[in-house]
């Protein structure tokens, strides 16, 4: 059986500098898989490669047996990978519900003509999507804000809105880039609980996050990057006691107890 997600010698260079260098790893289905590493380690670049925003300089990416290299982001979205962004890419010109409805885009078939003529099938499809979007807003605790303008939301809720929107695409794999950045302690806890619940519903999560307490608490496995290269991989316990990791990243101080 094909692996859920694997990369093979994945490399991305910018003007001769490698942001990701010969990276090979595999991620299992149904897990929370975290990618950690200091700032500039190449975590966001890895996400951009996996989601088709960047094209690898060399190497392969396979998702459930399918080659992802060369596919555009919308095609990758249709295959079942979605993501949230380090700086939220909210549609600030739209309401909370509308943001989520865009996430439902790929489940619809209504085109320009059917939409402009307000055909019954366009109307019933819109109704179905609305229900789907509301479910995902409810999952993220945002259903009571559905009709709010998204630009009126506080930061913590924007982060959850991005999650609800990504969930509306019904991804098999969700890439989350620093979901807890900028959140206070209680919001961070909520986000962690949300990610764990998400994983229980069958969505595999790849997580980039600097809050080590959160990462260690909810991850099944971790991949450590350093200067774009593979440094280590293992369970939270293994990583926390790995001398290479401690030296390169976690530092000698033991603030990472999760």
């Amino acid at each position, binding site marked *: 059986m094909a692996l859920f997600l694997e990369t093979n010698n994945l490399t991305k260079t910018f003007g001769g500098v490698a942001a990701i260098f010969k990276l090979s790893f595999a991620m299992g289905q149904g897990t929370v898989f975290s990618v950690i590493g200091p700032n500039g380690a190449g975590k966001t670049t890895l996400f951009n490669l996996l989601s088709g925003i960047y094209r690898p300089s060399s190497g392969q990416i396979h998702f459930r047996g399918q080659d992802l290299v060369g596919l555009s982001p919308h095609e990758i*979205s*249709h295959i079942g990978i*979605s*993501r949230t962004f380090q700086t939220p890419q909210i549609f600030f*010109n739209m309401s909370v519900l509308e943001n989520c409805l865009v996430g439902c885009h790929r489940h619809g078939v*209504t085109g320009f003509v059917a*939409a402009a003529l307000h055909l019954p099938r366009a109307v019933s499809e819109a109704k179905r999507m609305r229900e789907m979007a509301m479910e995902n807003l409810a999952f993220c605790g945002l259903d009571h804000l559905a009709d709010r303008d998204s630009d009126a939301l506080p930061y913590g809720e924007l982060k959850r809105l991005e999650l609800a929107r990504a969930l509306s*695409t019904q991804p098999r794999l969700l890439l989350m880039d620093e979901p807890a950045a900028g959140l206070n302690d209680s919001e961070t806890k909520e986000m962690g609980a949300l990610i764990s619940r998400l994983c229980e519903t069958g969505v595999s999560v790849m997580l980039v996050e600097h809050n080590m307490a959160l990462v260690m608490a909810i991850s099944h496995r971790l991949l450590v990057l350093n200067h774009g290269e593979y440094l280590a991989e293992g369970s939270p316990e293994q990583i926390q006691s790995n001398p290479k990791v401690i030296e390169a990243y976690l530092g000698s101080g033991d603030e990472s107890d999760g």
Partner: protein
Amino acid sequence: MRRYGGFLVLVALVVLAPIVFPGNYFVTVVGVTIAFNALIAVGLNLLMGYTGQISLGHAAFFGIGAYSSGLLTTLMGWNAWLALLAGLLAAWLVAEMIARPILRLKGHYLAMATLGFGIIINILMVQPTHITGGPDGLADIPTLTLFGWAIDSDIRWYGVATGVMLLGVWLALNLINSRIGLALRAVHGSEVGAQMMGVDIERIKVRVFVVSALFAALAGSLFAHQQGFISPDSFSFHFSIELVVMVVLGGMASTYGAVFGAAVLTLLPETLVVFEEYEVLILGAIMMGIMIFLPQGLWVSLSQKVKQIIASNRSTTNPSAIS
């Protein structure tokens, strides 16, 4: 439905105007021009206001519609409705061809490219003098016949022009309130976000460009028949800019705003003629004033003020769009 309440008000205005002011020049003559301009502005607003892609060349599509109808009916003796369809088809093809390369560009580059396109099309209307009549224009374009009725009076043209304009508004409203409209607005909000939600942004930009071109070409065909005479001046860079001003003046991303903007920009010069040579000056000053004090456009700003007064508990500050 609440969503279409505004539409019913617009229909009522359009129907009542010639009844309340029968034979009034501003209704049955200027009104027709407003309807054509509004139709184009509503289409352009789908591209600019909702999707966030500027075009400084839409007069070209207005011209393609007008010249297709004008040339095919006068030189080839085609049926006017067939010629109108041919005009739409021509606009479609041209839009499809230029949209692919052009819409990859952003901001100033997109503006420059569409500007260049508009100028090229305008030159193509001037140059083949033996066909198009060159700068002197094309005369003796027959009027339209609808179900055996010749559209040969001001009031009949008012009916046709406003009817088509209302149809355009209805289509645009439907489109915006649909899956497609959501995707268009998402492209405006964040291209990378929209892509990640499964929106093929290149394709949808091309599509909406084509739709806006079709709105303009339809207006152009009708305009040619209504005027009976067309010349390249009507389809110049100058008119492209006016169209953009209509969209911006009314307020981006508002279909009614585009209609309102078209009405204001068509009426203003008509009412300012009493100031003779100061007309353009005053028009410019008004526009600068609006942009400085009501940057979201007249319609959107005013309707927000009204909403704020009605529901003063819900504040709507609206710094628009991220880049």
